[in-house]
């Protein structure tokens, strides 16, 4: 939707959690690159959802079934439990009501995958300590033009899941495409969560 371009390491991490032939909904699907990657790697079916005209056009050109919709208005066209997996990649931080969108993900899908830039990453913390809003590969915008209005840390997200009775199935944390195992909230630039209803 307005995310940065995610590299193949993210795609691969997401693909590992998507079952072959799964029916998938990709929210904020951009030009359909992730969807087509999953189509190749996992033979998925399903749809992308996008609000942006240019991305809708790009999806049409890339052969991705795309539904133009503002995610802030929920997922009304999609029935309960009609997808195996619902993906929200690099979009959560740009949502006004990210919490209700995650509820919607678990209404229409059996499982969800969400990725977001970890605001707790040490480079971000350092920039804040120096007195500035962070700008990086994962957060490429200036404070005045960023679509990212609801940034969070890995710890924030886990607290959120616990409070909402969302069951985290798996987690991967990446920095420059490499898996991070120790001190993820400090050393991880990008968080990828696989979750289900509690």
């Amino acid at each position, binding site marked *: 939707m307005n995310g940065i371009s995610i590299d193949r390491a993210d795609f691969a991490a997401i693909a590992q959690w998507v079952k072959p032939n799964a*029916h998938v909904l990709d929210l904020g699907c951009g030009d359909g690159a992730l969807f087509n990657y999953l189509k190749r790697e996992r033979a998925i*079916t399903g*749809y992308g959802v996008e609000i942006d*005209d240019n991305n*809708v*056009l790009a*999806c*049409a*050109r890339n*052969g991705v*079934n*795309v*539904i*133009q*919709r503002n995610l802030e208005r929920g997922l*009304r*066209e*999609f*029935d309960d439990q*009609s997808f195996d997996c619902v993906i929200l990649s690099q979009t959560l931080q740009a949502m006004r009501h990210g919490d209700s969108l995650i509820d919607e993900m678990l209404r229409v899908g059996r499982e969800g995958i969400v990725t977001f830039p970890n605001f707790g990453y040490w480079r971000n913390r350092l920039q804040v300590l120096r007195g500035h809003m962070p700008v990086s590969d994962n957060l490429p915008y200036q404070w005045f033009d960023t679509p990212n209005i609801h940034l969070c840390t890995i710890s924030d997200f886990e607290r959120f899941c616990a409070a909402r009775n969302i069951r985290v199935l798996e987690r991967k944390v990446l920095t420059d495409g490499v898996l991070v195992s120790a001190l993820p909230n400090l050393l991880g630039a990008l968080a990828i969560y696989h979750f289900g209803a509690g």
Partner: protein
Amino acid sequence: MDSSEQILNKAGSVGAVVPQRAHFAEPLALKCGRSIADYELVYETYGTLNAAGSNAVLVCHALNASHHVAGTYADDPNNIGWWDNMIGPGKPLDTNRFFVVGVNNLGGCHGSTGPQSINPQTGKPWGGDFPVVTVDDWVNAQARLADHLGIRQFAAVMGGSLGAIQCLQWTIAWPERTRHALVIACTPNLSAQNIAFNEIARQAILTDPDFHGGDFYAHNVMPRRGLRVARMVGHVTYLSDDEMANKFGRQLKHGQVNYGFDTEFEIESYLRYQGDKFAGYFDANTYLRITKALDYFDPAFAHGGDLAKALAPARAGFLVVSFTTDWRFAPERSREIVHALLKNRRDVTYAEIDAPHGHDAFLLDDARYHKLVAAYFDRVFAEMQAGDAR
């Protein structure tokens, strides 16, 4: 293969075209219970049907349009097809790639058998006795035209408004013959408000003293006043409030009000002009039947209101497009169609074009809309070339 972007930059016209006529001797059973023993359809084609017969696209017309979809006539160069901005060499529906068919529907007044035609049983024009035809009947007649042209399966069927409704019907009634459907500014059925406007239009015609129960031909008159009002009502529903405000606002024709009933506001002048123009060429009996065909269309009705069940037979891939300011067939109505297609896990792309023009936007040249249609036809073409049988 050229990208759709490149294509749009070198678009042209199909040039001078010639309408053709197909005769069907086998009776066509109609939904109303009657049948038409013998009928003709007038049609036009652009481009060339390939050897495999796989590149045909049917363009279905809306309320007042015809088989003259693109190009001009040699003896009438100003008579440009109603969707000429969409169809032609290098246009979104590219006639260099596709064989495009436009057809005047059964009951029409542009040359196909209709109320003006002679009823062979009486030797007189059908008039008020012409059967009330439905969208189902139109589509079945179109399927016969496809047989006549050697088209077993359409690469796509395409239409806006009532044309789009016919496309939906194609996907339900002839799933194996409909590979893709471009369903633009559509609705799964008419709302009470839609039917209400149609009924006002019909009452205007039916109560015109010159209507004579539909047999006005014998009296050598036309119910012009009724048709005129019918068209005026229609036009109000085709435009958005904003578009009317932009185009006309409260502008006065003579710079001041005159406290009378001549044309004062520009919008009045526009409606009167449109009404007069329409009443000069359109057949009142056809208009009545087309509005009825619209009112009756409701594929979900036979399935307890479940549109997904109604669309379950469809095998086509869909492009569904709506326009944000269309209040006649609002985006919510297109989303109902999308919802039903999602339920059936059909291939569907849905776009909501932010256009100010209201329902009429489907006929206008909007870059986002046309690029999307071009991109979708790229996909249809690529698939067609790959010969991948759905």
